[in-house]
């Protein structure tokens, strides 16, 4: 029983990472139908920015400082990618795939040249040591922190989309791009903001990954495949679906590890997604109107 509860908790913590990694993909696919193959490298950039912040900022709360640095840094980098690459390749999805894949290779090599092939360590601060004991199982504080950050990001995103003017414009462009432009909305600028927001959230995911293991040039690659699976299973662009799919896949992967090792669990997760989309091709939440639900 304790093992089961422990794995359920782990499932939620992995789901939080999947969610943070997948939200940006879901946002940009939902709005622009763009698949950014360099999204994993935004996680990597977030991880390295956390490492660099911890090198220069003293004190126990330097991890808190690393969060906005990683978010803003990755978001600015995402904005640059959008302006230089994505915007120029709009309406050419295959070219976008190839170009962003090429970019991901360049960024990996760039990180290798700057930081070396061996990963750098981001040591979790002392206040994230230990954990809380609930029903006889030890919940590590680091994983609780990751779950908390994911919930905060999700709540912030929901508020942004439902309560702010930019959120209104994002939903309008998402529902009817032509009409949005005819009402005076600069759809290109909305695309830029959403893309930057998505990459910024990926930067936060990178900080979370850095708390669990070394930051390497390929750290994003290990999470990008599950993130794509989450987006596909979630219903291609639906935020609600992305959340549900992240939780389902996090739990499936984690519970499978009760009886099999981690590699086989990944395979089982993939098989689960294949079976799921055979039965329900529209995903957890069908997104027929392309409307960004919140």
């Amino acid at each position: 029983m304790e093992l089961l509860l422990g794995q359920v908790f782990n499932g939620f913590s992995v789901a939080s990472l999947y969610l943070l990694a997948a939200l940006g993909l879901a946002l940009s696919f939902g709005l622009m139908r763009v698949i950014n193959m360099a999204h994993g490298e935004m996680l990597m950039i977030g991880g390295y920015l956390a490492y660099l912040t911890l090198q220069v900022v003293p004190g126990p709360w330097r991890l808190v400082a690393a969060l906005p640095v990683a978010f803003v840094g990755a978001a600015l980098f995402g904005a640059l990618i959008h302006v230089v690459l994505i915007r120029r390749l709009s309406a050419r999805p295959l070219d976008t795939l190839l170009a962003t894949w090429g970019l991901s290779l360049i960024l990996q090599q760039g990180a290798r040249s700057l930081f070396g092939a061996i990963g750098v360590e981001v040591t979790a601060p002392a206040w994230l040591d230990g954990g809380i004991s609930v029903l006889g199982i030890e919940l590590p504080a680091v994983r609780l922190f990751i779950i908390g950050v994911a919930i905060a990001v999700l709540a912030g995103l929901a508020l942004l989309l439902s309560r702010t003017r930019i959120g209104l414009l994002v939903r309008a462009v998402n529902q009817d791009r032509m009409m949005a432009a005819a009402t005076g909305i600069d759809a290109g600028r909305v695309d830029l903001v959403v893309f930057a927001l998505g990459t910024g959230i990926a930067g936060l995911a990178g900080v979370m990954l850095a708390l669990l293991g070394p930051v390497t040039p390929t750290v994003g690659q290990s999470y990008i495949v599950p993130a794509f699976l989450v987006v596909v299973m979630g219903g291609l662009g639906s935020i609600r679906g992305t959340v549900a799919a992240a939780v389902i896949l996090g739990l499936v992967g984690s519970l499978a590890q009760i009886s099999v090792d981690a590699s086989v669990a990944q395979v089982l997760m993939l098989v689960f997604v294949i079976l799921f989309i055979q039965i329900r091709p529209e995903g957890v939440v069908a997104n027929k109107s392309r409307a960004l639900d919140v």
Partner: protein
Amino acid sequence: MPLVVMTGVASGYGAARVLHDVELALAAGSVTALIGRNGVGKTTLLRTIMGIRPLDAGTMIFDGGDIGRLPPSARARAGIGYVPQGRHIFPQLTVAENLETGLSALGPRGKARAGVPDHIYDLFPKLAMIRGRKGGLLSGGEQQQLAIGRALAGAPRLLLLDEPTEGVQPNVVQMIEAVLLKVRAEFGLTIILIEQYLDFAWSFADHYAVMDGGRIVRQGDTAAESAADVAHLVRI
């Protein structure tokens, strides 16, 4: 000086040319009924004015400036409001949110303004009663009022109306007519109206322009000729 001057306008869909050498000038404050059979290019002309279809040839001057290469959002901000055929209401946005999107045409003034201006709800009291309802759940008549209200929220100087009476019950048609007369009188709006229902068009248009084969083939004043005089030109 006319508010809108189109010279040699050509547009279409890829290789399919729909508009050929369209010549049209609209005086500020005038209302022009654009009439013609189905498929002659009326909707394409409005879409080209709005910038949704590219201007393949010719020039398009609005308020003294060349708008021919501007994107739709810039044309909306320059003062062109659009009520498209099929209404294009944002289905998942509430009535109030749909109206708020219209404020984008005001540019920074729209950003600063919180909420829907009262005069839109004064024009369409029904919209005030259902302001929290999702646009996709409204009836055809309610959606039409919303589409016109959304365009008016951006305080346009030129309003493009594509078949505002289509699929709308008679009492709502009368209400729309009254609203259009009122905003025309109050704000001096220039209006281009595509309308199959000629009596409605003649009720407040000053001019008419008949399209055929992607060209404007006849123009005149509605005061000089009755709707019955030109009805044969639009009959299938």
